[in-house]
């Protein structure tokens, strides 16, 4: 699956590129409005990451162009603008998701993952990992045909881990993902630890507890075999 990163900040673009490429995506980079426009015209992308503040044009304009040309890529807006109005107007004219800077790479990973599942798997909304079937639509998980009774938070945690499989996800990224946009005042590592522990315990009932690996207390990794 091809992803186009339109972002003028080279460091950030490179980091996203590196993180996502390792995640089995094929990435390309564009650093300006015109470069982006050119690439969009030439190739098809499953997903476009679009920065709104480009040196030679407004990202929102680019979004308009993409939609007018009936290009069927999933679009995630990346922006330093956090005002609510931007969010609404951006989504209104056709972006699929919105990520305010600064964001964590695992967060970007799970957003892309969810978007691509929504866009592509028209047959099934079920993803499989290590024998666990996760239904993204029903928000349920099943192991060996037995339902895994997860709380909403545990479900979100599982999806985050699976979407970033074989990547180490920092506790901070998990805390942010679970507590949402507003409650990020929490440095609550207890909160993350509790939920990881609970999820692990539930997975352990089906001998899947080892899927989650702890990295020196800094982060966690979903091992995909």
């Amino acid at each position, binding site marked *: 699956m091809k992803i186009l990163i339109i972002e003028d900040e080279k460091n950030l673009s490179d980091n996203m590129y590196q993180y996502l490429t390792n995640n089995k995506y094929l990435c390309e980079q564009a650093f300006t409005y015109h470069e982006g426009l050119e690439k969009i015209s030439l190739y098809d992308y499953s997903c476009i990451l679009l920065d709104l503040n480009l040196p030679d044009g407004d990202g929102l304009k680019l979004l308009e162009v993409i939609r007018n040309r009936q290009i069927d890529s999933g679009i995630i807006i990346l922006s330093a603008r956090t005002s609510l109005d931007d969010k609404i107007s951006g989504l209104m004219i056709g972006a699929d998701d919105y990520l305010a800077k600064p964001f964590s790479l695992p967060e970007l990973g799970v957003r892309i993952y969810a978007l691509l599942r929504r866009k592509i798997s028209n047959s099934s909304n079920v993803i499989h990992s290590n024998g666990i079937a996760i239904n993204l639509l029903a928000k349920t998980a099943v192991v060996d045909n037995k339902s895994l009774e997860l709380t909403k938070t545990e479900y979100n945690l599982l999806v985050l881990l699976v979407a970033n499989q074989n990547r180490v996800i920092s506790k901070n990224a998990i805390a942010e993902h679970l507590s949402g946009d507003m409650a990020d*005042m*929490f440095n609550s590592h207890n909160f993350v630890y509790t939920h990881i522990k609970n999820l692990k315990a539930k997975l352990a009932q089906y001998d899947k507890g080892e899927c989650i690996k702890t990295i*020196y207390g*800094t982060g966690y990794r979903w091992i995909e075999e």
Partner: protein
Amino acid sequence: MHSLKFRSVINFIVSTVIVLTLVSPLLFYIIKAFYTDDLDHMITYRIKQFEENQLPVLSYIDIDTWNHYNPDLQIIEFKEDIKLNTPIQHIYFDKSLNEVIDYRVIYESIKIEDEPYLIASRIPMISRADLIVMIASQLGVEFFFIIIGLMVVYRIFSREISNPFYNTLQTLSLFEVNGKSIPKFQATNIIEYKYLNEKLSELMHRTQRSYQRQKEFIENASHELQTPLAVVQSQLDLLLQDPDLTESQNKIIQSLYTASAQTKRLNKNLLLLAKIDNNQYMTQENVDLVQKLKDTYQLFKEIANSEDVNFSISTVDTFQVKANSTLVDVLLNNLFSNAIRYNKPKGDVRILLDEHSLIVYNTSESPGLGDSSIFKRFIRKDNSKYGSGLGLAIAKEICIFHKWDIGYQFADNFHQFKITLKS
């Protein structure tokens, strides 16, 4: 503290009293001098009349009779040691009044049938006490009329002099540093006031502009910080993927994550404050507060549980309020996360929503936080490393924005934050 009007009237009265008091002795001596001079003319005139009319026909034997009928124009024996032709002051005893009285007296030498005599012409002076009373009552009357006059004059001129001043004051009180425009002064044709108004207008313009710039600066600075912060965050996320990281390296990365999260949070809160200050959250809608509380309850319950804190909510059935939905979310999140963050193990957080207000109760290790300085920016009552120091400042700003009242008290071992939403 007194008003300008009161002050100026009092000052005038006091100074008038002082001046009148100071000039009264002077007045006394002046009046006395003129009076004495008059009397001296009178007694000299009487002698002249006597010499012209009576003396030529007066004989030696008439002297006693004359003296009997003219107590104030006595013919006495000639004495060498009496000063002649100059009025002098002398005290005589008045039998009828039974007191001594000052007289002006003048002696002249005359001759009756070639015998030398003295004629003494005298006239009683007004008594010193009477003179003082007279002057004092005169001054009193003058004082009374001066005050009356002053009031009249003051009323007439205040329209020109002080009314523009009070207008300026009133206009000035309408000024808001955060406002969109500056209040307009009434036109005046007094040069000084015109100048004052111009200078004040200029000052208000500048204050508003620099406040505006400061807000924009904070907002821009926060915006500019977001991209580098995103780079830091993503670098850390990548670094964490290195399979060869040692435990000590991981510890360093963790502390970098913590610092990065704090910076992010601080930046986000600064941006939020700037946005509230800049009135970027203008839209208001009907917010179902009960629903909002229910939405946030689950998340905060989980967070509280992981911190070993009991979290409970009790609300009325329905509570609609006109507000900005995003800001209400922020407000609830700030209050709830504070209540959990500053709690103690096995502590309690209770949220109560009644018909008028929302109250957040929480236990804590620390005693009451005291004054309202807790709502100021970057005030932290303990050395907690978690808070950005802006949570309550933001809560306060949000309440001000919605014209709600937020208060704090410590009672029954509970910190209580109360937001009065409806009176």
